[in-house]
C-alpha cells in the first residue's frame, strides 16, 4: 500500500483504452455491419471511400478536440467551412495559377478566425460558446455580404485534386489524397498530444489556475487550440470544396455534427478528459453510421432520429457504464 508503482507502459495502455474503448467497439460493429450490408465494403476500396468521405469531419474533429479538451467550444467551424469555400471560389475564379496562393491564404484565414475566437475568449473572458456563436453569425453574414448573397467564381482543378482524386497503390487500389492527408494529420495530432504542450492543454481543461500558477501560458495555449480548430476547418473546407465544388451550404450543421462526433469519442465537454484518437474515431463512427443507414435505405426522417438516439445512448453508456467497466478491469 505504501509503494508507488514505477512508471511503466502498462498503465499508459489502460488509460488510453479507458476513453477509446467504447467508441472503437461501436466502430468495429458498424464496419462489420457495413460489410454485410453493402457488397462494396467487402474490399478495401469501399472502406477507403468511407474514409475519404469521413476525412473532412475527422479533421474537424481533431481541431474541435483541441478546443473541447481545453475547456471550450467552437461553434464557428461550420460557417467557417462555408466561408472558406466561398472565398476560395471567388479568389480563384477558375484561374489554375491562383491555387498556389489561395490555399495558404485559406489556411491563414482559418488561423485568423481561430485567433480572434481565441483572443476574445481568453482576453475578454467571454465564454467560447458565445464567442463562437457570435463568430458563426458574423461569418455567415460577412462572407455573403462580400459576395453579394451567393457564391461567385469557381474553383480550379488543381484546388480540387486533394478532395477529389487519389493515387494508385498496389493491392489497395486508388487511395484518395484526402486519406493520405488525414493519416498525416492523425500522426501529427497524436504526436502533439503526447508531448508537453498537448498534455498541458488537457490540464488547462481540467484546472486552468493550476497551469497558470505552474507557469503555463494558458491564454496562449487556449488561443492555440482555437487557431488549430480554425486551421482544421480550413483544411476541411479545402477537402469539401474539392470533393463537391462550390456551394453555399457546405458547412451547414457541421458544428453540431463535429461536436457530436467528439463527444461520441468519449471526450468530455468542459475539458480535461479524452483522447484525440477517440475523437476521430467518433467522427468516423458517425460517418459509418450514416453510410450504413443509407445502405439500409433508411429514409431522411428516421436517419436523424436514429442519430439522436445513438448519441444519447453512447454518451449515457460512457458515463453510466464507466464505473462497472473500470471495476471489472482493475480486479
Amino acid at each position: 500500500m505504501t509503494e508507488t508503482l514505477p512508471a511503466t507502459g502498462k498503465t499508459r495502455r489502460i488509460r488510453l483504452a479507458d476513453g477509446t474503448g467504447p467508441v472503437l467497439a461501436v466502430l468495429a460493429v458498424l464496419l462489420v455491419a457495413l460489410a454485410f450490408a453493402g457488397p462494396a465494403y467487402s474490399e478495401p476500396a469501399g472502406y477507403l471511400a468511407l474514409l475519404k468521405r469521413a476525412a473532412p469531419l475527422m479533421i474537424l474533429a481533431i481541431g474541435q478536440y483541441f478546443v473541447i479538451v481545453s475547456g471550450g467550444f467552437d461553434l464557428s467551424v461550420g460557417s467557417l467551412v462555408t466561408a472558406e469555400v466561398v472565398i476560395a471560389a471567388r479568389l480563384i475564379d477558375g484561374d489554375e495559377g491562383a491555387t498556389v496562393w489561395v490555399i495558404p491564404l485559406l489556411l491563414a484565414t482559418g488561423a485568423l478566425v481561430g485567433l480572434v475566437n481565441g483572443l476574445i475568449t481568453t482576453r475578454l473572458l467571454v465564454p467560447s460558446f458565445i464567442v463562437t456563436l457570435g463568430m458563426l453569425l458574423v461569418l455567415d453574414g460577412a462572407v455573403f455580404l462580400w459576395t453579394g448573397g451567393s457564391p461567385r467564381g469557381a474553383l480550379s482543378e488543381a484546388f480540387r485534386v486533394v478532395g477529389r482524386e487519389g493515387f494508385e497503390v498496389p493491392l489497395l487500389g486508388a487511395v484518395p489524397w484526402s486519406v493520405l492527408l488525414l493519416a498525416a494529420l492523425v500522426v501529427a495530432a497524436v504526436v502533439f498530444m503526447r508531448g508537453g504542450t498537448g498534455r498541458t492543454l488537457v490540464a488547462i481543461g481540467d484546472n486552468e489556475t493550476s497551469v497558470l500558477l505552474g507557469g503555463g501560458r494558458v491564454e496562449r495555449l487556449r488561443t492555440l487550440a482555437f487557431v488549430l480548430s480554425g486551421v482544421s476547418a480550413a483544411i476541411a473546407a479545402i477537402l469539401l470544396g474539392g470533393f463537391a465544388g462550390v456551394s453555399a451550404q457546405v458547412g451547414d450543421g457541421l458544428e453540431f455534427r463535429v461536436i457530436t462526433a467528439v463527444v461520441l469519442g468519449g471526450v468530455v465537454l468542459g475539458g480535461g478528459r479524452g483522447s484525440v484518437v477517440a475523437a476521430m474515431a467518433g467522427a468516423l463512427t458517425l460517418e459509418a453510421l450514416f453510410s450504413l443507414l443509407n445502405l439500409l435505405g433508411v429514409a431522411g426522417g428516421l436517419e436523424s432520429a436514429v442519430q439522436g438516439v445513438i448519441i444519447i445512448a453512447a454518451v449515457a453508456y460512457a458515463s453510466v457504464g464507466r464505473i462497472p467497466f473500470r471495476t471489472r478491469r482493475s480486479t
Partner: protein
Amino acid sequence: MATGTAVAPRPAQRLSRVLQPTVVVYLALVLLLVAGSILVGVRGGVLLDQGGILNILTRSTALGLVAIGQTMVILTGKLDLSVAYLIGLCSLIGAETMAGDPGMIVPAVLLTLACAAGVGLVNGLVITKLKVNAFIATLGTALIIRGYLESAYSGPAGEVPRAFQHLGYARIGPIPVSALLMVALAALAWWYLMRTKGGYHVYAVGGDEEVARFSGIRTDRTIIKVHVLCAVAAGLAGLFLASRLGSGAPWVGVDAGYDLESIAAVVLGGTLLAGGRGGVAGTIGGVLILATLDTIFDDLGVTPFFKDVVRGAVLIVAVALYARRRGALR
C-alpha cells in the same frame, strides 16, 4: 478579534448593485432606442410610432417565451437545444388538436403543454439519470423530434379557430396582448426564481451541483424541473406561433433559430452561461434588444447579411462587457 477581516467596503457594494447586468441591459436598450430613433429619423421615419412599438413587442413575444424557459435551464448550468424543434412540434399538436373547433381550444392547449412537459421530462431524465451532458442530451432529443417532423409532416398542418387567433393578434393600443402575457410569465418566473425555495435551488445547482447535492438539495429534481418548465415555455411559444400563423408549422422554430437565438438572448441579458447567476429580468431586456435591433435594421433597409454580422458582434461585445465588469469587481 476578527477585526482584520474587514468586509468589502460599502460603496463598492452599492456600485455593484447599481451596475448589475440587468440594469446595464436596460440602459443599453434605452441607448439603442435613442440611437435607433435618431438613425431612423434621419432617414425620415419614426422608430417608436405605434407600428414600431407593435413590431418590437410582437417580435419579442415568441423569443421571449422560449428565452424565459431557457433562462431557467441556463441558470442551472445546462442548455436546451431542443426548443426549436419542440416549438414546431407544439404548434402542430395545438393546431391539429384544435382543427378549427373553438371548443377544442382548452383541451388542445392542455395536450400541447403536456406533450411539451413530456419532452422536457425526457430531457431532464436523460441528463440526470443517464448522466448525459445537457448539450448532447438535448441535441439528441432535437434530432429525434426532427426525425419525427420530417417523416410525419411535409408542411403546415392543422387549423386553429379564429377565437384562438385573437391570442396572437389582439392588442391594447400598441401593446399586443400576447406580449403582456409573455411579460406576465416573465414576472412569474422572476418571482419563482427570486423568492421561492425552488428558485433558490435553481441558483444553487447552477452555482455548484456537488455543493447543492451535499447540502441536501435534490439536484436531479431541480434539473428535471427546469427542463420541464423550459419545454412548457417552448410549448407556449409554439401555441403562440400557431395562433399567429393560423396553423401548425413544423419548421417555424427551426427557421427562426430559436435554439441558439434564445441562448444568445439569455446571455445578452447578463445570465452566466455557466449557471448560478443572472435572471429573467435581464433576459427580457436581451430579447427586447434583439427585437429592437431587428426593427431598426428593417427601418434602415439593411440586408439580412449585415444584420447577422451586427448581431454576432453585439453578442460578443455585450458579454465581453459583463465579463470585464465581473473581473473588475472580483
